[in-house]
């Protein structure tokens, strides 16, 4: 038999490994062919690897080839192996091809690559750990292991893509990778080039279909209706009937909120916004709004919750701003702190305290932590070459230097970090540095500084991460960032600056210096809590009792996941460290970035001038929350989501449910006699509610919002199918049915109002008021769906909840906030909306013409193949091939694609 392979074809890996296992059974010849070679005569599309059997038959499925080798060695087929192989072909492969395509062809990294396969990886891990078998189909390694290992190896051989929380998968993968046949297959295929070895092959492949489906990340995933067992339905009905009586009593509100032994104590922080920037929508969703949803949810669960935030006020940026505006730094901070506080108040952010970092408590806590680090030998002294602008007569802080990034050559790299490649930069390493204020070239001067000895703390950090990460809810991007920092090795980091506006350094010889903001900004959470209560240490020096959730955008991960923990561990004062680090990706504006200087995007203070209520902003920002990948704010999409999800789905349902009670039953909830259909709906709602809880407990904020909309969709369908407005005019039985449907619907509306509370607090309280929900039901969200509005309950006046957004209104807002990029972004938009037309708008020929050409290409391709198969005259073949190439060229032109140059075929 003969095996046809191609350079870099991933399928070759499992096939060679399986051949290695069944070695010696039959002679195997291996031929290498080009990636587009038609080996199997009856297949239109090229396929490798292919095994040609001695009988002349072809095996063109990778799994079937592996299976054949195993069958030859005497192995017998079993159900479990079949199941794994079917799963591999239908579930794993589509996800994996997308991930490999992203990684190898598109050069993406991190969560972009891991995202598509995460579910599949978790499935394998859970199966392994549940069965507690070392291998997929039992005690010994077998076909399923080889096929899956071979499929996964190209991706997982890079430890960055083998999530460490998946322990069972980890050890399974290591075991297989160390076996000889697997090792040899890996060497043959990847040739020690790692994943890049697959590039020549994958580049030639069509884009995997999963990618096309995911092109717009803002769309909801398909909803699935699971089948419910009779027991589940019965249980849901029993719980429902218990009603409000089964709720725990309301906890009295404490002031100040302090941790309580034996309870769940949740401490929430959101990244401290820098005081003199007005936050844009991206800042708001990444930090304060995300944390707010979780804080509100946490309170609804009756968890003991404290939510802390404030402005980060020290540093050069403030000094410079003060110079610009002719004020003192303190005056600048006072002015801008109020602006921030107003914006967050408008967005209804439920801080327990919104403080600031320029307080005596900040100085005291920072100096104490520093002193402890100093005493324990975790601080180094060194002389630093630093950039000084002679014209401005001062040392330049990192962010006041710009230049060319020494790593990637990006022109506008900042002195501390490159926005393009994300690497941290030492300001003096910048090429062509410029003072950002006066644009003159700074000179290098030396100055004595203090350094935090991160390498010395690395072991402690690793030990802590090893205990904290498994089983925690750190977002994948945060894990990824921390892992890559540790892989590159930690270096000492300078913690002082030649400035005046900052926390003084309590050390002789450093009187004219202050702490660098990144060292003491994260202590701001502690000092702000200290401003809230003098018992702040009960929150911050209490790791046994306190669960710390920290919210931020991904650029802040190193400071919260590495630097703060290192300082706190080194200080040895039993600090509370982050249990769950929740980082978002970035939110873009339309098709570009938010930019204050170019006037592009919506900033916090402008949102209120749009006339669109804060809750609508909250809803849309949370709906597109950049979880897992970057997302984009789009005016058109906002209009669509408001009009479809809020107005037509949610608002429509809640309003109808309430109106039926008012109109048909005089405002009093009618008697409910549940049929089996009602009971099924009740169980579905319960299930979706439990799903909502599971998601929010894991801080999957965006996904949990989908659960709310799903329930309301169920509700709308329920009303639509049962038509209470018709039945109310019918027989006695019909009238009773109308009552039941109305009663159940209005109870679902009551549930939705509480589920909405974390997302849209004002709308939530409006609904609760309209339905006259009892106070207890407004403050607690149970894990089961209860009857909170029993028969006889009187509701209030019902009115519509949402307003339609009109096209011209949105269009004028888009123009107002578009900035200089408006036209460009509109042009791009035209390609994105409407979706199905996307391909056609960029083509230069009509779809019909293209279709005709495609058919001709196919026809001509067949002629060529037939001639080749018949071993026809060479010149005749060449002539037909020339025709084919010409047709392909016409097609490419018609489709507006760049021309492919024909490749010379390799001889077999």
């Amino acid at each position, binding site marked *: 038999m003969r095996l046809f392979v191609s350079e870099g074809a991933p399928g070759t890996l499992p096939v060679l490994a399986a051949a290695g296992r069944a070695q010696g059974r039959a002679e195997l010849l291996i031929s290498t062919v080009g990636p587009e070679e038609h080996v199997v005569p009856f297949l*239109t599309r090229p396929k490798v690897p292919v095994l040609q059997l001695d009988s002349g038959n072809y*095996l063109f*499925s990778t799994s079937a080839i592996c299976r054949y080798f195993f069958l*030859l060695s005497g192995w017998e*087929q079993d159900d479990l192996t079949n199941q794994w192989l079917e*799963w591999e072909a*239908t579930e794993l492969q589509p996800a994996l091809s997308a991930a490999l395509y992203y990684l190898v062809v598109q050069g993406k990294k991190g969560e972009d690559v891991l995202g598509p396969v995460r579910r599949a990886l978790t499935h394998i891990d859970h199966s392994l750990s549940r069965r507690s078998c070392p291998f997929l189909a039992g005690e010994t390694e077998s076909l399923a292991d080889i096929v899956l290992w071979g499929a996964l190896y190209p991706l997982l051989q890079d430890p960055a893509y083998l999530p460490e929380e998946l322990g069972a998968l980890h050890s399974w993968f290591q075991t297989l990778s160390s076996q000889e046949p697997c090792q040899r297959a890996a060497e043959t295929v990847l040739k020690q080039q790692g994943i890049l070895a697959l590039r020549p092959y994958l580049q030639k492949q069509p884009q995997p279909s999963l990618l096309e489906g995911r092109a717009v990340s803002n769309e909801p995933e398909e909803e699935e209706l699971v089948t419910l067992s009779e027991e589940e339905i019965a249980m849901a009905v029993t719980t429902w009937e218990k009603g409000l009586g089964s709720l725990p009593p309301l906890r009295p509100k404490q002031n100040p909120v302090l941790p309580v032994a034996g309870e769940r104590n949740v401490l929430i922080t959101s990244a401290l916004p820098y005081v003199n920037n007005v936050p844009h929508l991206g800042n708001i969703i990444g930090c304060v709004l995300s944390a707010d949803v979780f804080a509100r949810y946490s309170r609804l669960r009756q968890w003991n919750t404290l939510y802390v935030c404030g402005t980060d006020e020290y540093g050069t940026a403030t000094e410079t701003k003060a110079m610009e505006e002719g004020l003192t730094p303190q005056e600048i901070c006072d002015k801008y702190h109020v602006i921030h506080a107003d914006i967050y108040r408008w967005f209804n952010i439920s801080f327990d305290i919104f403080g600031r970092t320029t307080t005596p408590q900040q100085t005291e806590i920072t100096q104490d932590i520093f002193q402890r680090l100093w005493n324990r030998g975790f601080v180094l002294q060194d002389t630093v070459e630093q950039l000084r602008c002679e014209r401005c007569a001062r040392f330049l802080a990192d962010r006041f230097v710009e230049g060319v990034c020494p790593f990637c050559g990006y022109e506008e790299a900042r002195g501390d970090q490159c926005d393009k490649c994300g690497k941290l930069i030492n300001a003096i390493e910048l090429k062509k540095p410029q003072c950002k204020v006066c644009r003159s070239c700074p000179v290098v001067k030396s100055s004595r500084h203090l350094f935090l000895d991160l390498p010395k703390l690395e072991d402690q950090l690793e030990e802590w991460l090893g205990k904290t990460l498994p089983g925690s809810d750190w977002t994948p991007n945060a894990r990824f960032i921390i892992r890559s920092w540790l892989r590159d090795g930690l270096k000492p980091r300078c913690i002082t600056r030649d400035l005046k506006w900052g926390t003084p350094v309590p050390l002789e010889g450093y009187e004219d210096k202050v702490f660098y903001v990144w060292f003491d900004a994260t202590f701001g959470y502690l000092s702000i809590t200290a401003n809230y209560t003098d018992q702040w240490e009960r929150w911050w020096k209490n790791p046994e009792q306190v669960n710390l959730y920290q919210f931020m955008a991904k650029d802040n991960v190193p400071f919260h996941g590495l630097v703060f923990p290192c300082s706190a561990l080194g200080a040895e004062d039993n600090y509370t460290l982050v249990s769950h680090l929740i980082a978002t990706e970035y939110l873009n504006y339309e098709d570009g970035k938010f930019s204050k200087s170019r006037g592009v995007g919506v900033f916090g203070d402008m949102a209120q001038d749009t006339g669109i209520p804060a809750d609508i902003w909250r809803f849309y920002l949370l709906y597109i929350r950049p979880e897992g990948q970057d997302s984009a704010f789009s005016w058109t999409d906002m209009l669509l989501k408001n009009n479809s999800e809020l107005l037509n789905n949610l608002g429509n349902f809640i309003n109808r449910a309430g109106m039926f009670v008012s109109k048909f039953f005089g405002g009093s909830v009618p008697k409910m006699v549940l049929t089996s259909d009602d009971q099924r709906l009740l169980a579905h709602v319960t299930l979706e509610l439990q799903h909502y809880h599971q998601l929010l407990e894991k801080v999957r904020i965006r996904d949990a919002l989908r659960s709310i909309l799903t329930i309301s969709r169920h509700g709308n369908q329920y009303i639509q199918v049962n038509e209470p407005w018709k039945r109310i005019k019918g027989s006695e039985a019909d009238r009773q049915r109308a009552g039941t449907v109305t009663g159940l619907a209005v109870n679902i509306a009551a549930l939705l109002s509480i589920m909405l509370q974390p997302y849209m607090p004002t709308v939530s309280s409006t609904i609760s008021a309209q339905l006259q929900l009892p106070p207890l039901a407004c403050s607690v969200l149970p894990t089961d769906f209860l009857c909170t509005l029993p028969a006889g309950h009187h509701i209030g006046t019902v009115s519509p909840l949402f307003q339609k957004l009109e096209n011209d209104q949105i269009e004028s807002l888009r123009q107002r906030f578009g900035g200089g990029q408006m036209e460009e972004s509109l042009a791009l938009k035209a390609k994105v909306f409407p979706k199905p037309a996307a391909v056609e708008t960029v083509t230069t020929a009509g779809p019909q013409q293209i279709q005709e050409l495609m058919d001709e290409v196919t026809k001509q391709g067949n002629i060529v193949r037939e001639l080749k198969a018949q071993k026809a005259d060479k010149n005749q073949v060449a002539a037909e091939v020339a025709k084919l190439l010409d047709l392909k060229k016409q097609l490419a032109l018609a489709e507006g694609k760049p021309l492919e140059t024909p490749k010379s075929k390799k001889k077999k």
Partner: protein
Amino acid sequence: MAAAELALLEKSLGLSKGNKYSAQGERQIPVLQTNNGPSLTGLTTIAAHLVKQANKEYLLGSTAEEKAIVQQWLEYRVTRVDGNSNKDDIRILLKDLNSYLEDKVYLTGYNFTLADILLYYGLHRFIFSF
């Protein structure tokens, strides 16, 4: 869909007691809860299981080669035939199958197998909508 197909298969295999199937996920993958072990998921996995239950193993192929070919076409059924194929994909698929079957009676050559049954079920909807 898949449950109806499996019920049909049960009948043609002569299995008397009908199984109950549930469906999983957006693609509605069939799940069979077996009496003596964990549940089985996936159309071809369950189909192969039913064949063994009916003591008709020959439908899975007799030689190593036949067995591999049967599984290859079962995989083809669930990945290609059931995939979200557009009109062009379906045309190519039918053309490929036609040219493969030109010199054959059944998918494995001369023996009728489970691959023929499931591919027949799978293609049914295309052939009747063309």
